[in-house]
């Protein structure tokens, strides 16, 4: 694997990247006779970022950029020794000669591991140190800021979803959906506090919920990525909407040489007992004169998945009775197709132009066969067999065009103009092709008049009673209780809530009186949830100027401008039985039906508590066509003004535009060999305009109305006393209905965020670094959080989401301190402290379950009226057991943990509590095996995310003194996430230079995703994803 060191021809100048801001330069007086030197530092095939490059006997000193490149300009002519050092590699010293007016280009300077004899001239490296750890470690050591870097490289990581790569990084947690990473968080801070960037820009967000500004990663394959950079404390040149931290995904750029890589993987998902596939092809080319390079990268990732889930909805604010129990068997196929292209051209003068384009198309064909026990449907209890099918489709595409220019010897300029677009919608279910009625299909067969036998009566004192056969409450002697002052409530209680001993959380058993047969189930309606969501950034423009008046100080200034526009519309299309045509029940048993395949047993992790209770569902291949097959036996009910629920959907369509401008100025000052400072200020201005419909003045301002179908105008709602259409004889769709004055409301929210920042770095010695930072950051409210007008409805989950146009952005002061000790062979020990003080923290409230008949939950958002405090300590140890010698020296560990203490005072509660969405403890540990002689690598990692509070129940009632008072002073009606362990294992074998085999098994512990209400025995959502195993191979030419 010898690679020849290339020392090639002189070129006029060299590429500078965005990371020039972190260069350290020492002063040097400018001489008339100067030349330049540039090069790329390599470790085998990998470039080494942040290696220290020094011209001995001078003050020229620089760190290589992310692509391993460095450059010295205006070096006095003469002979020098160029010394290159990096964290665990031997120093490399090269003799060079600077010629006046020319640039010495050093191609591919090879580093080698430090246990080999250091040599001059052509360097032979016995084996590649190709792991991301080493590279990341080097980067981290040399960074001025506090953060971490994860190197993704040429598909080096086994994870396919970009978020899954993040999971391995210290202090990073990933929130999951169906077992796949979706949103990331630094140090466990709320997702909304964190900023996810692609090449330095926030991407537009459009997904099914679209409740956040943070992009869901489903659509993004890690094949697109070069590396991921996490900044825990940001610098002024990073977007400031990042209280928790910032994660920057850098997409691949064209390589330095011609390359073809092919990756083929297949796997198995144990939950669904079906396969997983991934394929990727990468083609990189560079022209002979090395000025032009491009890459083409195409990737497909198709995976079957399955989830066993049960959900419980609690119906009341006054007791913990169950409203419903749902047993959901999810199966589906997710497919990601993505591609990217990168071009760059370097001009003679060193100016460079580049283009990067990317597209990701994501589909999720999801089935959910849901058995739903409705305890508290008003008119008698029912059991539903819900057939839920959807084909979600997301398309993200965009690109950026930019250039880098050396304006003068001391002045560099780069610019970038980007365009990105993201769109979400539902595909062809239940109808083929494009159809306005297609959406998230829910088709219900239902058994009515169910008598549940697992309910008890509770009186207002908490005493419990059983019931007789007719459901009357009886005392222990069997007498029917008739005293209304007891305020008896008939409820299903579980766990310790039930004084007579309730079902444990893992076996909540509905007891159905009078039998439960498939023939009891009749069609009770179908609907599709319609969802059109898009967001795009038509123009994002970045300009940065950097200036180095001398080698001790470095200025950087820049500006950013972004226009964003978005639209979202949720609606409903219903089908009901048309009783004028057919009044007999449409029985499930009259259609093709079969027992659902529970793929190894439903909740087999809990011992299959519902085995034998399941009923058949309609056969899947019949579900989509069912509606069409019934013809006029069903009547259609679109969500028009003629629909009785129309006004509940009024707020579910909205649009917005947001303009943001940012400018910053920062200086990087090297006081002396040990101390350096980065200081500066960033100012961001945001102008948000949102438009949505509202029912003016709420419930009181209604009028009696007729609804007409007016030609060319559509449905019109007119006051019966002011009816222009009556005389014209148009068709009335509805008479004497209620109209509400629906008005468009606009929100205009402008705010300016001045964000001063100061970073200090102290190099105690070559291997010990202290860092400190004080930064100010903020968080823009999410669009749904400030949405004016009527609430947005989440129909299937029976939630209303009421925006709060009065929300202010949150601002945070952040203090970060860290100590890092670097050890040979990628060893690292670090501890850190961080503290945050957040003003106007935005938190989610629930005024839950006012009506247990429907189980509707109202959610809204508030600014905390007192500052929120978050403080934490974190530690990270990376160590190879090289001191053990022999076989054991191939092992290493990487352990990190973060403990966070947070306090928030909820208005109206007597005690403060921990911050919602903030786990106290995060822990990652990996045991790594790396046998370089055989090319064998393996690792086992565990990941722990502590439990946390998710939502605060702020339901309030008027007390005796007519003051609004929170119903719940404690957290017993709040929503929590339980802690979770995840364990993954992976192994790879580099058979030869071109061929690698790898394997991964994830979610080995199969611990549940577990959300509960107040107490752990009160589950709300429990999901098992089971183990996923994959086997793959890579070819590289």
């Amino acid at each position: 694997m010898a690679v020849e060191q290339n020392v090639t021809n002189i070129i006029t100048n060299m590429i500078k990247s965005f990371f020039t801001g972190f260069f350290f330069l020492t002063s040097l007086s400018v001489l008339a006779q100067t030349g330049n030197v540039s090069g790329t530092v390599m470790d085998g095939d990998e470039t080494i970022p942040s290696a220290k490059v020094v011209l001995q006997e001078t003050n020229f000193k620089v760190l290589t950029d992310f692509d391993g490149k460095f450059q010295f300009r205006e070096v006095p002519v003469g002979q020098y020794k160029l010394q290159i050092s990096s964290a665990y590699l031997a120093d490399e010293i090269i003799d060079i000669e600077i010629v006046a007016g020319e640039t010495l280009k050093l191609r591919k300077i090879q580093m080698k591991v430090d246990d080999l004899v250091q040599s001059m001239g052509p360097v032979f490296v016995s084996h590649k140190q190709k792991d991301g750890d080493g590279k990341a470690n080097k980067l981290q050591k040399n960074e001025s800021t506090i953060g971490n870097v994860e190197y993704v490289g040429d598909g080096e990581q086994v994870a396919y979803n970009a978020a899954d790569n993040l999971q391995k990084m210290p202090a990073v947690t990933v929130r999951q959906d169906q077992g796949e990473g979706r949103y990331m968080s630094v140090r466990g801070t709320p997702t909304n506090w964190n900023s996810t960037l692609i090449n330095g820009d926030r991407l537009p967000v459009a997904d099914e919920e679209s409740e956040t500004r943070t992009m869901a990663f489903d659509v993004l394959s890690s094949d697109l990525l070069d590396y991921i950079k996490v900044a825990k404390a940001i610098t002024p040149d990073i977007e400031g909407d990042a209280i928790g931290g910032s994660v920057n995904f850098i997409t691949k750029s064209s390589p330095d040489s011609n390359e073809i890589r092919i990756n083929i993987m297949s796997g198995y998902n144990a939950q669904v007992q079906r396969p997983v596939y991934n394929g990727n092809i990468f083609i990189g080319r560079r022209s002979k004169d090395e000025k032009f390079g491009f890459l083409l990268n195409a990737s497909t990732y198709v995976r079957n998945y399955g989830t066993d889930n049960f959900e419980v909805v609690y119906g009341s604010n006054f007791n913990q009775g169950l409203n419903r129990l749902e047993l959901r068997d999810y199966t589906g196929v997710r497919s990601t197709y993505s591609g990217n292209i990168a071009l760059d051209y370097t001009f003679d003068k060193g100016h460079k132009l580049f283009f990067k384009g990317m597209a990701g198309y994501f589909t999720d064909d999801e089935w959910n066969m849901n058995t739903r026990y409705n305890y508290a449907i008003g008119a008698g209890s029912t059991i539903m067999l819900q057939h839920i099918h959807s084909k979600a489709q997301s398309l993200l595409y965009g690109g950026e065009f930019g250039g880098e220019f050396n304006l003068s010897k001391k002045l560099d300029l780069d610019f970038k103009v980007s365009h990105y677009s993201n769109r979400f919608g539902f595909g062809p279910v239940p109808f083929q092709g494009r159809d306005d009625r297609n959406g998230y299909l829910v088709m219900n067969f239902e058994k009515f008049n169910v008598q549940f036998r697992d309910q008890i009566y509770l009186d207002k004192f908490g005493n419990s009673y059983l019931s007789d056969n007719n459901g009357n409450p009886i005392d222990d002697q069997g007498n029917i209780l008739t005293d209304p002052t007891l305020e008896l409530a008939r409820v299903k209680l579980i766990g310790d809530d039930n004084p007579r001993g309730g079902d444990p959380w893992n076996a909540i058993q509905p007891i159905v009186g009078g039998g439960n047969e498939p023939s009891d189930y009749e069609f009770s309606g179908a609907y599709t949830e319609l969802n059109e969501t898009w967001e795009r950034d038509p123009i994002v423009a970045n300009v940065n100027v950097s200036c180095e008046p001398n080698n001790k100080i470095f200025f950087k200034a820049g500006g950013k401008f972004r226009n964003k526009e978005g639209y979202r519309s949720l609606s409903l299309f219903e089908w009901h039985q048309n009783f004028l045509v057919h009044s007999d029940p449409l029985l499930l048993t009259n259609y093709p039906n079969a027992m659902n395949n529970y793929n190894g047993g439903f909740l087999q992790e809990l011992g299959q508590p519902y085995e034998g209770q399941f009923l058949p569902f309609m056969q899947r291949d019949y579900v989509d066509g069912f509606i069409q097959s019934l013809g006029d036996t069903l009547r259609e009910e679109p969500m028009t003004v003629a629909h009785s629920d129309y006004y509940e959907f009024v707020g579910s369509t909205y649009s917005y535009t947001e303009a943001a401008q940012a400018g910053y100025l920062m200086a990087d000052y090297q006081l002396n060999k040990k101390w350096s400072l980065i200081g500066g200020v960033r100012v961001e201005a945001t102008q948000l305009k949102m438009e949505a419909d509202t029912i003016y003045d709420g419930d009181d301002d209604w009028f009696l109305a007729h609804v007409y179908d007016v030609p060319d105008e559509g449905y019109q709602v007119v006051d019966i006393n002011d009816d222009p259409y009556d005389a014209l004889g148009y068709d009335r769709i509805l008479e004497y209905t209620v109209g509400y004055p629906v008005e468009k409301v606009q929100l205009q929210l402008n705010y300016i965020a001045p964000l001063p920042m100061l970073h200090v770095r102290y190099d105690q010695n070559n291997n010990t670094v202290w860092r400190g930072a004080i930064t100010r950051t903020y968080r823009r409210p999410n669009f749904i959080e400030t949405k004016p007008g009527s609430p947005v409805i989440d129909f299937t989950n029976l939630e209303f989401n009421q925006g709060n146009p009065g929300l202010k952005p949150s601002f945070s002061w952040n203090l970060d301190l860290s100590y890092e000790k670097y050890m040979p062979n990628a060893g690292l020990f670090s501890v850190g402290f961080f503290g945050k003080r957040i003003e106007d923290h935005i938190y989610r409230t629930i005024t839950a379950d006012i009506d247990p008949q429907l189980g509707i939950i109202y959610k809204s958002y508030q600014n905390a009226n007192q500052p929120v405090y978050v403080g934490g300590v974190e530690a990270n140890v990376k160590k190879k057991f090289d001191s053990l010698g022999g076989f054991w020296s191939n092992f290493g560990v990487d352990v990190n943990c973060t403990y966070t203490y947070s306090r928030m005072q909820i208005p109206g509660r007597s005690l403060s509590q921990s911050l919602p969405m903030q786990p106290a403890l995060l822990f990652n540990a990996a045991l790594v095996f790396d046998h370089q002689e055989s090319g064998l690598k393996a690792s086992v990692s565990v990941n722990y995310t502590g439990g946390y509070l998710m939502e605060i129940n702020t339901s309030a009632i008027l007390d005796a003194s007519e003051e609004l008072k929170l119903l719940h002073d404690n957290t017993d009606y709040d929503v929590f996430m339980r802690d979770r362990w995840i364990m993954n294992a992976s192994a790879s074998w580099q058979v030869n230079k071109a061929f690698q085999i790898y394997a991964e098994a994830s979610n080995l512990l199969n611990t549940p995703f577990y959300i509960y209400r107040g107490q752990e025995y009160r589950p709300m959502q429990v999901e098992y994803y089971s183990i996923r195993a994959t086997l793959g191979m890579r070819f590289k030419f």
Partner: protein
Amino acid sequence: MFKKSLILGFGAMVLGFTGFAQDADDEYKLLFIGIDGVRSDALQQQMNNGNAPNLKEMFDTGLFTFDSWHLGVTSSGPSWSDMLTGVWENKHGVTSNNYTGSDYGTYPYFPTRVKECRPNAKAVQVTSWQPMSTNVYNDGWDNKIVPPTDDACAQVAVAQLQDVELDILFVHIDDVDAAGHGNGFNPSVPAYMNAISYADGLVGQIINALESRPNYANEKWVILATTDHGGTGTGHGGNSDDERHIWWVATGYNVPQTEITGVDPGSYQFGTPPTDAVVAQVPVLTDIAVTALDHCLPDNTCIENNQAAWDLDGKSWLEEDNNVYVESYTLQNEFGIYPNPNGGVFDIVVDIETDETFTVVITDITGTVVFQSTLDNHGTYSKKKMDISQYASGAYMLTLTGQNSAVTKKIVKN
């Protein structure tokens, strides 16, 4: 159509009922107010506390019971179907709010039946509960209006009552049920009790509108009000007493002022038709449609001609041969028995305009006279306390004779 009606109505007043087609007995009109999910004990308490004055006035002046027992599925679809068709679930077929299995073709809503005898009758339904509008057919409504809120329902009802052509109006008020579901069906729950008071206010608005009809004095209105079920905890649909124990009240033309009490005939839930003797004596849901028909079709021939075809299960509160419910439409005078049913001791009261003397004779099945007396004249009414408590239980015949008329009733002593 609404505007047109107003104009016609105005014209009709001026021209004296010549503006539109009319049936005989067109002046017999019915308002049926259904309030969803009001427990009997809760209503009683609210009325006693003065928090439901409009319903209280109906109870004070009409025929009422707090002792009706729901015999079917205590959910709205089956309950309102019982009431509006006059037959039980085994016939109309609706056993859930899904409304499947309905046979309104054979057993329609009572307005369809009214129209068989009075083809020009006009009937309107106002409810905020969509399924009762879209899932029901052959219901005879000229218009089914679904305003989304109770407030709107009341306002629409008020507007409809200005239509002089209107003969039958059914208004459904839903929010008491919602309050029960949200907070508990219980007299101790303020939100539930407040919802009853609020509904009472809407009843007041509707009755005011009724009484403000221009031709009200010449119309013969009966107002029925009832509920479909009670509730326990925050639900209903089950078979417990609190879910099944309901009330109803009737006032208006020729309706006596009396209370009816009854024992629980037991549960008949899920389709078994209630047939036993107790059901024939106590107020039940199917009585509503039959009573409504009885009032709207005062000429009994049409009902009698259709008796087999209609196959009704309920009984009229106004029907003359019913032992429990006594009405004096063959007399010119108001006539009542209080209380009714009774333990053998009761008052007979007859309203009188002239100085008229009434005699009462009670005979057993064999014709043997067991009681005979003359009513005491109190100026505007005649009254006599009867006592047959010493006689055996069973059926007796009561004959009341005035100067120009006589009527015979069957009474049952329990």
